[in-house]
């Protein structure tokens, strides 16, 4: 089965059908049909995806000469290559550039680059890393009289994506 649907709520609101489903993907499809949600047509839909992954790890970068950089790795279970990453530190970055990326599955590299023109030394503090999952709703068809509406995801749903769909329709 391409997608697994678990119904959470089925009701009528203001003459429209309301549905809430938990959906799990195996990565083989990008589309949810209205009929998957026990509807003929989707009027409006939104989904709540699984939480982004967040991690906090103490990192201690050595003193960096001008034009030098250093990389430390954070274990980030569940992060995969292609996830977007944000990083924040609870200390003044003293003019350094701090970036982060998924280096390999389950591993995020935090890069500190000093191009400040002088030596810099970051204090040892927690660095917070967030891996943002890529799932997104690209288009919704069905509110203009299509016989069967559907929601299309981009990037493609990947194996293990789990999220909740809330939909109003007919």
């Amino acid at each position, binding site marked *: 089965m391409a997608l697994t649907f678990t119904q959470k709520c089925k009701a009528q*609101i*203001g*003459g*429209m059908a309301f549905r809430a489903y938990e959906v799990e993907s195996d990565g083989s499809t990008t589309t949810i049909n209205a009929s998957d949600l026990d509807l003929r047509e989707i*009027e*409006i839909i*939104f989904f709540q995806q699984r939480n982004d992954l967040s991690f906090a790890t103490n990192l201690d970068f050595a003193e960096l000469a001008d*034009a*030098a*950089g250093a*990389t430390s790795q954070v274990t980030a279970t569940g992060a995969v*290559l*292609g*996830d*977007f*990453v*944000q990083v924040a530190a609870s200390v003044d970055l003293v003019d350094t*550039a701090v*970036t982060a*990326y*998924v*280096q*390999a599955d389950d591993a995020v*590299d935090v*890069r500190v*680059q000093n*191009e400040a023109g002088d030596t810099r030394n970051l204090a040892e503090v927690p660095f917070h890393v967030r891996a*943002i999952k*890529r799932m*997104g*709703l*690209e288009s919704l068809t069905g509110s203009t009289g299509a016989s069967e509406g559907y929601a299309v995801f*981009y*990037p493609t749903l990947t194996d293990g994506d789990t999220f909740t769909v809330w939909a*109003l329709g007919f």
Partner: protein
Amino acid sequence: MALGFSIKVRGQIGGKMFRAFEVTADGSTKTIDAASLEMTEFDSAIITNRQDLSLAASINMGSLDDGAGNTSSETVTGAVLGHDYAMTAMSVDAIDTTQTAYVQSAGKVEVRTDNESGGAADIADGVRRVKIPRYVGLSTLSGKYLIFSPALESGDVFTVWALGH
């Protein structure tokens, strides 16, 4: 008209009024009155944004010497200069290079790769992704008003789900 409202559902839940409206802004207001959603007061509201912009493109930048950089330009229709934030990610290891992304001009995002790692960096071929989150932020929910920050801009499209009376 300052805001365009398209009703999706009007109903009752647990003794409360429930409304779902699709809203289109023209940039001249940052407030929604309860009356616009056919209510006298809000108890709760959820804003679901229009969809983020996404792009996937092939990476093939070759080897970068230490101190060298590379800029690739990608078309992201709908990206707005001075308004949108851009993020980038790759399907391969960035091997200590820095990757930054920004809206270079309307509809165009540039991704800058800088190699200051101390040696040559040869990033493998793969897929680069660019994401532009679209924010329509609810700042304050105050009785009869929903107040947005940053201010709504022309072309913002979103859905308001509200409970009230």
